[in-house]
């Protein structure tokens, strides 16, 4: 019999990737395409969902070709996606009503303030595990319902559908207007503010609170399950899993036991800790979320610390300032100097997420003197990711009562050695990268492979995990403390920048 493989689709914030993995979890081929970032107004971030679908139509067959693998050799497809990005489309034509509103978008700030002032607002976090913030999907759905004439009526009649990117891709893969499956998985649903964290169902009180009609919502399913069979792009192949990208990375790092954690560095940075079968409530600004649900088994929960801007700051340095030509050049530029020269950048582009949750904060560059060069700025860019990690690790330690002993990392930024060393230095723990840096994709593949029996169980997957690199802390403790102090003072300067309209 011909060798069989699993294909993953990682629909990320900056690009979409298809990767084919073999049974040992080794990468066989990879194709990738970036999509455009639209910034129509300050604080607004949008993606064209049709562009993303077209990208997938192109790169999926390319990945097969590159690997020399036929469709019949693909045991299953697993999907991981940027979370919370909100799309509404027409069920009959398949055409999106607007561009997708991306998770970093803060257009719903006023709406969220208004909702938060209502007496029932305290119910939200209890029910769904998340604070009421612009980061999540429900306020965006509401914003669209208010903004697009006639949309509410059409949504109530079930003529338009809501979904995050995995729903959009699954619907299109399984036929689109012609019988496409409208579903989401528990991890993605847990990011909407609309799902009850314990029943794993859409919650009527939350739907009422946000004014979202149930008819437009996808069906909630486990993360690994054969949802159906693709009818286009990869016709005949089973779709075996969908997970939010951060949960997929938790899975790909094989953090299957309570107490195991990882941090993924892409556009944003996301630290997730497996907390087992029970949702743990945070008292230090972390989120309670679903980690994964394997078939009919009970869901596994996680504590999560999202950092809104890590790689996005590098991206801004490249595209917004034009100081580098490619993201990796940030390391080259940062290495032209020995330290930050006293300069700190706090990238509160969309407010600050964990552990601060300050939506009114905006970014600052502090400590500027005429001594500062673009090299110092580049260093401050990388250090911003390291110090933000320190803040969320401190919060995670406080919440869990455990001290993190080693940080498992993955994502595009782990190719940056200076950054990885810097993270080890400021955390004072070793930083470890696994053999597959594309852990999001690997996690989606693992989940899909489990669903169809390509891999027998979680323990087998664990044996595929190997250390590819390790960075050991080497920073003078006194310097670490004084730098952390500077960082904290810089963070305070971002607070309260946006003022309510007078």
């Amino acid at each position, binding site marked *: 019999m011909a060798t069989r493989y699993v294909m993953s689709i990682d629909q990320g914030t900056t690009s979409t990737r298809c990767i084919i993995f073999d049974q040992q979890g080794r*990468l066989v081929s990879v194709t990738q395409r970036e999509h455009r970032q639209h910034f129509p107004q300050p604080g607004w971030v949008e993606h064209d969902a049709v562009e993303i679908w077209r990208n997938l139509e192109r790169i999926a067959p390319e990945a097969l070709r590159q690997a020399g693998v036929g469709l019949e050799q693909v045991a299953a497809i697993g999907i991981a996606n940027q979370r919370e990005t909100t799309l509404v489309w027409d069920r009959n034509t398949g055409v999106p009503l607007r561009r997708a509103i991306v998770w970093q978008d803060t257009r719903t700030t006023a709406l969220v303030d208004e909702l938060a002032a209502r007496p029932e607002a305290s119910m939200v976090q209890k029910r769904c595990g998340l604070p009421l913030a612009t980061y999540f999907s429900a306020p965006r759905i509401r914003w669209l319902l208010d903004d697009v004439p006639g949309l509410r009526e059409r949504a109530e009649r079930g003529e338009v559908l809501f979904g995050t990117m995995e729903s959009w891709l699954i619907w299109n893969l399984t036929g689109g207007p012609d019988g496409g499956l409208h579903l989401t998985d528990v991890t993605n649903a847990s990011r909407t503010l609309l799902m009850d964290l314990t029943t794993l169902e859409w919650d009527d009180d939350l739907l009422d609170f946000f004014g979202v009609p149930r008819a437009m919502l996808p069906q909630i399913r486990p993360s690994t399950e054969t949802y159906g069979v693709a009818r286009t792009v990869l016709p005949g192949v089973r779709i075996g899993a969908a997970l939010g990208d951060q949960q997929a990375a938790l899975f790909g790092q094989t953090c299957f036991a309570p107490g195991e954690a990882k941090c993924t560095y892409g556009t944003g940075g996301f630290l997730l800790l497996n907390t087992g079968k029970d949702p743990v409530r945070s008292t230090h600004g972390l989120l309670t979320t679903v980690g994964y649900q394997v078939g009919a088994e009970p869901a596994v929960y996680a504590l999560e610390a999202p950092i809104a801007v890590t790689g996005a700051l590098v991206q801004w340095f490249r595209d917004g300032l034009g100081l580098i030509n*490619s993201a990796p050049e940030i390391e080259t530029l940062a290495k032209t100097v020995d330290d930050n020269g006293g300069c700190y950048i706090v990238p509160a582009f969309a407010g600050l997420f964990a552990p601060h949750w300050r939506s009114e904060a905006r970014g600052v560059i502090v400590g500027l003197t005429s001594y500062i060069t673009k090299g110092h700025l580049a260093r401050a860019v990388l250090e911003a990711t390291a110090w933000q990690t320190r803040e969320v690790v401190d919060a995670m330690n406080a919440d869990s009562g455990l001290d993190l002993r080693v940080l498992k990392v993955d994502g595009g930024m782990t190719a940056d050695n200076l950054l990885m060393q810097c993270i080890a230095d400021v955390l004072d723990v070793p930083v470890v990268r696994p053999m597959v840096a594309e852990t999001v994709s690997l996690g989606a593949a693992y989940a899909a492979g489990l669903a169809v029996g390509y891999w027998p169980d979680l323990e087998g997957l664990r044996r595929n995990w190997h250390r590819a690199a390790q960075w050991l802390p080497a920073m003078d403790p006194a310097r670490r403390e004084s730098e952390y102090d500077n960082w904290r003072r810089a963070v305070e300067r971002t607070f309260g920048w946006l003022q309510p309209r007078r």
Partner: protein
Amino acid sequence: MPGPVQSIQRGAAILRLLARSSGKLGVGEIATSLGLPRGTAHGLLRTLQLVGFVEQDSATGKYQLGAALLHLGTSYLDVNELRSRAINWADALAARSCESVKIGTVLDGQVLVVHHVFRPDDTLQTLDVGSLMPMHATALGKVLLAFDSGAGAALGNGPLEAFTRRTIVAPKDLTRSLAGIREVGWAAQVEEMTVGEAGIAAPIRGHGGLVVGAIGISGAVERICDAKGQPNTALVTFVRDAARAVSRDLGAARW
């Protein structure tokens, strides 16, 4: 002898035109100035853009000379970018070969290690990124010497340093060995640097086939070589496939 290549002449004319003009030029202006059909000018510009010799303003669509022209001859591909672009394939090579992987480039007559993936056995290993190795006694170095005619200049004409009894020390022996490497497209080193260790490496090529680095594995000689002391052919294939995959991603069309 064949005559001059027309598209190279035209490309050169575009570069001269852009260098001479003070602002940026649109494709129409360029086509008219050089008397070229618009489509031809556009095709040439696209290729020049691909190799970094011209840049296009995303707002106006106009063209100017690219940054790559300014440091022609110095750094062709940023080493950190090389690592970012190669990381997936380096991981896969380590997983397949069960050996540690390194990627090297030339720095002042030595091999600079720009990327290192541990041997996937979870034993204690330390990251070697940033360290320097001799060119003539490593597989990575010999690949770089074989395919980059400038790289050898720093070695001089005298005898080379011996690290073991098997190190190639005579310049004429090295020259012969490099010719062989160019012929087969990969290099091996068997106990030439350290007794008991061996390595295999192949070239990473960028646009136009220019060698920008080398990728290879190294480890205990009894794992890297077969019973006859020859590099294991399966491992050679893994290394060459990984080098080709990285090269393809970097835009080297033929590999």
